[in-house]
């Protein structure tokens, strides 16, 4: 079958040159070669009307191209048949979901049913968060309570949280689940105070088995809301209901958040999700391509993964490529399309913020920025600190004095020494692995 597919692809690409675009898209796009037997090539087209036009107007072109690619003089027969390559199953929350998937009927408001654990790409940067989330979903309220997930935008926090909600719901549809954002929570609290009807709001938030609040950092500075959340929190934990929260930073780094809340948030498990690494970005692309029913080779995926940093950027880029491919009538994103589409890579350095470099060095060496900036000179801190100095100098072109300030008020001579040390190391040993930090930031592949 795949042979026929290839032959037909070649035939079509030849025909595409001969006929007008309108004719090609309307008449040829949905044709398929079904078989070649005893010199008879059977071609499927969606309707009799299309076949009529193909036979009357384009028969000789089709025959010429087909003969050329099959290599023999064929007789071409058209059959009316719609060939669907792969039928996408949207299985969740439909009338047939009970019979087809055994999963429950109905769906959670505001939760996307396609966010599940199965279709999440997992790699080093999000593995811990993934494992904790599955554990929580398996046994809500019993293990890590609350589960606090933090990380930058587009790394999959929302996917993970909605997957927990979906999983808990699929297992036990009678559970009371609420997925909300901190903005909505705030609105509800304000509304309740305004209409003097707090009892109802309390019922809504406290009579739950699972409460998921996304982007909790936005409650910073809202005292009444924080107080309400604090009480809700206590009630839920007391009755063993699971709480899952997400934020773009660690609870202790959310400013204007009450101490007692910070301590509550830290009471369960706090996990971070890092920006997807290169391999994960490739995996995400392949999963998304499958979802959109288009084939994508690993090499092409690698090339795309180099161009975008977060999952949303990747998806956006992929969608544009898919549209491009479909316009050309292909079911695959080829390297040609990619090449014609992606802008030529610019070599000029991107404007980094010094903190970005420091953060990346820290995550590479697994130390904290505060440690890097502290006066301590433990052996495990010295190398990362010097690498940070080196990169700040080479990448940003900062002065030694500026770097000294950034790294906790160090003397400029200390910085000169550190930069020199790493320079020498690079000269002696060639391509050192920490140079990869830089590439990682630029979105290149780390070898």
């Amino acid at each position, binding site marked *: 079958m795949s042979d026929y597919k290839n032959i037909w692809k070649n035939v079509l690409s030849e025909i595409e040159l001969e006929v007008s675009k*309108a004719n090609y898209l309307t008449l040829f796009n949905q044709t398929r070669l079904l078989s070649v037997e005893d010199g008879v090539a059977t071609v499927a087209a969606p309707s009799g009307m299309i076949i009529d036009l193909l036979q009357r107007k384009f028969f000789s072109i089709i025959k010429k191209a087909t003969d050329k690619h099959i290599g023999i003089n064929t007789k071409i027969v058209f059959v009316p048949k719609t060939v*669907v390559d792969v039928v996408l199953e949207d299985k969740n*929350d439909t009338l047939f979901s009970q019979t087809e998937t055994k999963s429950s*009927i109905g769906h959670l*408001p505001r939760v996307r049913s396609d966010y599940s654990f199965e279709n999440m790409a997992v790699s080093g940067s999000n593995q811990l968060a993934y494992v904790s989330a599955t554990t929580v979903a398996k046994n809500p309220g019993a293990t890590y309570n609350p589960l606090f997930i933090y990380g930058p935008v587009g790394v999959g926090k929302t996917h993970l949280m909605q997957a927990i909600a979906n999983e808990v719901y699929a297992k036990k549809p009678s559970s009371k689940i609420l997925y909300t954002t901190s903005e909505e929570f705030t609105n509800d609290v304000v509304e309740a105070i305004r209409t003097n009807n707090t009892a109802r709001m309390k019922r809504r938030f406290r009579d739950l088995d699972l409460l998921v609040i996304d982007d909790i950092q936005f409650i910073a500075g809202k005292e009444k809301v924080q107080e309400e959340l604090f009480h809700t929190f206590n009630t839920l934990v007391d009755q063993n209901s699971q709480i899952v929260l997400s934020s773009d930073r660690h609870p202790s780094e959310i400013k204007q958040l009450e101490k007692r809340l910070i301590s509550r948030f830290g009471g369960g498990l706090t996990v971070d999700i890092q920006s997807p690494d290169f391999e994960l970005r490739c995996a995400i692309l392949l999963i998304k391509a499958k979802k959109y029913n288009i084939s994508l080779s690993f090499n092409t995926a690698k090339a795309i993964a180099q161009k975008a940093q977060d999952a949303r950027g990747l998806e956006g880029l992929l969608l544009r490529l898919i549209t491009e491919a479909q316009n050309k009538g292909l079911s695959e994103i080829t390297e040609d399309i990619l090449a014609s589409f992606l802008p030529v890579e610019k070599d000029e350095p991107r404007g980094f913020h010094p903190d970005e470099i420091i953060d990346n060095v820290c995550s590479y060496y697994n130390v904290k920025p505060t440690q890097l900036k502290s006066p301590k000179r433990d052996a495990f801190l010295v190398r990362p600190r010097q690498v940070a100095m080196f990169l700040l100098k080479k990448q940003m072109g900062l002065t030694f004095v500026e770097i000294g300030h950034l790294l906790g008020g160090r003397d400029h001579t200390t910085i000169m020494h550190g930069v020199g040390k790493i320079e020498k190391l690079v000269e002696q040993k060639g391509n050192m692995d920490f140079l990869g930090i830089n590439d990682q930031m630029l979105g290149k592949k780390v070898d």
Partner: protein
Amino acid sequence: MLVSLLSDNLLEKISFLNHAVSSRATLPILSNFLLETKRGKLVISATDLEIGISAEVPASVEKEGKTTVLAKNFLDLITNIKDQKIKLELEENVLKLKGDKVRASFQTMSADEFPKLYEQKGDVILTLEKKDVEKFFQRVSFAAAVDSSRPSLLGVLFEKGKEGVVLVATDQYRLSYQKTPLKLKEGLEKPIVVPGRVIKELSFLKEDDGKISFCVSKENNQVVITQAETEIVGRLIDADYPQYEKIMPEDADTKTEIDREELLNAIRICSVFARETANIVKLSVEKDKLVVSANSPQVGEDLVEIAAKTIGEGNEIAFNAKYLIDVLTTLEEEELIFEMTGPLNPGVFKVKGDNNFLHLIMPIRIQG
């Protein structure tokens, strides 16, 4: 080609034919009507390659011939000519229209470019009356999907039942099921799936007493529906239909009798506040009333009570208001029965005293 005819006769047909003209055709010929003389009459056809329609207009033919003209312009012009006798004459590549006071000429495209709607009609598998369309087909076709990745959902299933043809359509969120006494021709054991678009066109067939025949040609994978000289052509959908039998409900815990108009009105009132919240309206079934309510925290809330006669326990369920409005506007009977078993199983609408029809709707899960 030279024909004379009445503009009103023409208008009636081409406004129906316009349904088959593709609005976003990439192929120019598909934006055209095919005009040809046949058997001393004028036959006009239109197609977007998915569905084709052709109809006959009474006319006096002086000279045979055929051509195609841009449908939109032709229709717009004819719409604005009031009851006149007009003459259509093809000269070279230009179609000239002459009325009492009107002169127009249309650039044409060769009729050779136009696809033939079908080769062979196939065998008649079903004949029915106009009233059957209203009674059975309309109750089903609205539930078919308009756009779906599963081709079979775009169609209406025709299945041989014990007493006659069973019609089913679903878009996965709601399902219509109708048993009919219509007899399928012997030999057609396998169910067929006819595009919902084709079935929807049935309601535009004009003649009230004309018999409607379904012709199916398996080898051409095509269905032709004819009434007198009007033909609707579509392709059969050759994908597996979902196993709807498995979700047909058994007995329900709660059954309640309601008035269609009242319920429809209540849902329309509540959908005002449901707009913000994905159109969710809640139905609470109580002993002698049904309460329809909607609320969206930022905008407001409302509820409407309507009279009901309930058997079984009280219950609550939530639906997308659109689906409720669809079924309630399609049915014409006033006394309906609503059945449900818990808030998570599909809700069922039936017509009182009619065991041949039912409509299932997926509920939406809401927080208490």
